[in-house]
């Protein structure tokens, strides 16, 4: 059985559990599943915005591409286009800049749950030293948390309004 098939089983079992010791992703990962059950190379995941961040109370969907060489090569993870504002995410494409997803820092012992969890942590702890979104990076670097939170909240309320109309 291939590694990704094994993972699929494990992911289903883990996320279905209410026991916090068995499922440490409660309140973090809402769902993680293949888009089409017969094709385990394309996945989707939804995470909850972390508490005490401007992303709280919102959900974020991402698309995951699992290459043939997985787990020797990392999965490719993108947010949906124009769905999030963050200094390590290119909003227009959804591209994420996260070291563990780069080929040189990846190791095959990590799985999709780890990766999605790591993206969630990136929302909680933005890394402004190497920003993909330079403007957002500068706001954080200046220490202007109020402006940062305000601009993210504004973006997200706009996003919700556009989704409903």
């Amino acid at each position: 059985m291939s590694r990704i098939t094994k993972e699929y089983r494990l992911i289903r079992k883990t996320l279905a559990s209410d026991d916090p010791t068995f499922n440490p992703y409660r309140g973090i990962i809402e769902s993680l599943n293949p888009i089409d059950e017969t094709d385990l190379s394309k996945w989707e995941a939804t995470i909850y915005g972390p508490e005490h961040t401007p992303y709280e109370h919102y959900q974020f969907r991402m698309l995951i591409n699992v290459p043939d060489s997985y787990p020797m090569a990392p999965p490719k993870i993108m947010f949906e286009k124009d769905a999030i504002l963050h200094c390590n995410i290119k909003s227009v494409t959804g591209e994420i800049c996260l070291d563990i997803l780069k080929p040189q820092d990846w190791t095959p012992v990590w799985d999709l749950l780890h990766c999605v969890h790591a993206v969630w942590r990136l929302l909680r702890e933005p890394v402004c030293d190497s920003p993909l979104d330079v403007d957002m990076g500068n706001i954080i670097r200046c220490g202007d948390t109020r402006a940062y939170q305000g601009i993210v909240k504004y973006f997200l309320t706009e996003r919700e309004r556009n989704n409903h109309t």
Partner: protein
Amino acid sequence: MSTYEEEHGIQQNSRDTRETRETSQEEQRRQVRSQLQELFQNFGSTGGEGNGHSDSTLLLQLLSQLLPESLQEEWLQEMDNGKNKGCPDTFAASLPRINKKVLKPSDNCSICYTNYLEDKYPLVVELPHCHHKFDLECLSVWLSRSTTCPLCRDDVMGHRVINEIDTTEAELEEDWGMYG
């Protein structure tokens, strides 16, 4: 089956020239492609260094506008692969094997997530220094791309020289004892 031209001893002039023209065009295209790749990768690695290269960044920008993004990504990845080469093929095979009796039912390979004992004849190896265990098959694929332990990032090539010398010397001595 022979063609009309062959049966009648006629040269198929028109078709031949068209074919050669097509192949030379393809050849040209391939050449241009490899030249572009060379340019792209050279500029990428020296990009923006010193005054003499200030115009090369401009060229790189131009190039990247011309090339499709997927091709650029492929070439960049090729460069990365060249940089972090893995261990020599013999390294993984030279690692000490783990006896089946030592393995617990819950022990599994953290690369393929399979329990070692699911296999009747598990081939498990241990890395020097950090002593992390993996399936030989999984680990050799990983070590062909990297020189670090998947679990702790220990540089596995850092601790191997002494071991190798020891074993060869021991074998030599044994032989001498038998035939001397």
